[in-house]
C-alpha cells in the first residue's frame, strides 16, 4: 500500500494544504498592504528620496517543490517581492500654490492611478477570500479523516 493512506498521514497532508492556502493569503495580504500604501500616497509630492512618491507593485512567484524523483511541482506562492514601478511616468499638473512646484507652477504627482489601485484591491480581496475557503475545505476533510479513527 502506498503512503499517505492512514488517517494520521491524511491529517499531515491536510496541514500541508493549509500552508499552501496560507501562502496565498500572505501574498494577497502583502498586495493589499502595498495598494493601501499607494492609495495613501496618491498625492505625496515630496519624499525623503526627493521627488514625488513612486508607486509600488508586488510580484508573485510560485513556490517550487522538487519531488524525490526530480519532478517539479508548484505548491503555494513564494514570499512576494515588492518593487518600485519605474515604468509608469509621473503625472504633471498645474498647481501654482504648491511649494513643491517648479518656476512655471507645474507639480509632479505620483504615478499612482487610484482607480487602478481600487480595481487591484478588489481582485486581491477576492483572491484572499478564495484562499480562506480553501482552508475551510481542508478543515472539513481533516475532520472527516479524524472521524475514521473513532
Amino acid at each position: 500500500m502506498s503512503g499517505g493512506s492512514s488517517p494520521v498521514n491524511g491529517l499531515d497532508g491536510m496541514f500541508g494544504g493549509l500552508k499552501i492556502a496560507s501562502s496565498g493569503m500572505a501574498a494577497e495580504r502583502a498586495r493589499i498592504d502595498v495598494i493601501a500604501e499607494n492609495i495613501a500616497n496618491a498625492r505625496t509630492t515630496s519624499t525623503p528620496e526627493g521627488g514625488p512618491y513612486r508607486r509600488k507593485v508586488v510580484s508573485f512567484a510560485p513556490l517550487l517543490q522538487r519531488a524525490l524523483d526530480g519532478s517539479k511541482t508548484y505548491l503555494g506562492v513564494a514570499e512576494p517581492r515588492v518593487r518600485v514601478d519605474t515604468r509608469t511616468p509621473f503625472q504633471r499638473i498645474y498647481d501654482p500654490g504648491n511649494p513643491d512646484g517648479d518656476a512655471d507652477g507645474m507639480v509632479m504627482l505620483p504615478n499612482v492611478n487610484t482607480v487602478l489601485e481600487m480595481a487591484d484591491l478588489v481582485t486581491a480581496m477576492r483572491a484572499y477570500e478564495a484562499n480562506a475557503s480553501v482552508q475551510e475545505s481542508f478543515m472539513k476533510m481533516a475532520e472527516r479523516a479524524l472521524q475514521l479513527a473513532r
Partner: protein
Amino acid sequence: MGPNVDTGLISRLMAATELRAKVIASNIANQNTPGYTRQEVRFEDVLRRALAAGRRDLDGITPRIVADRSNPAGPDGNNVSLEQEMSSLRENQLRYETYATMLQSQFDLMRLAITGGN
C-alpha cells in the same frame, strides 16, 4: 477480492484526493502569479483504464501531477480560472467524503466480524 484489497484501494483513492486538494489549493494561491500554469492530478482515469484492461499490478499506478495547458492563458500568462478551481475543490471534497464513508463502512464490517455484534 477480500475486504483488505478494497480498503487498500480506497485509501489510495483518498491519498490521491488529498494530493489533488493541495494542487487545487496551489492553483488558487497562484491565481495572480504571472506565467503560472495550472496543475492537476491524474489518477482515477489511469486506474479506471488499468482495471478495465484487467491489470492486477495496481500498486504501480500512482497519482501524477501534470501541467494543464488546455485553458487559454490571460495577458499575464496565467491560465487559472477561479470558478473552475473552486468547483474542482468542491467536487474533490465530495469525493473524499465518499471514500471516507466507504472506508468507514468497511471498518464497521470488520468490527462486526471481530466482535460478532456484541
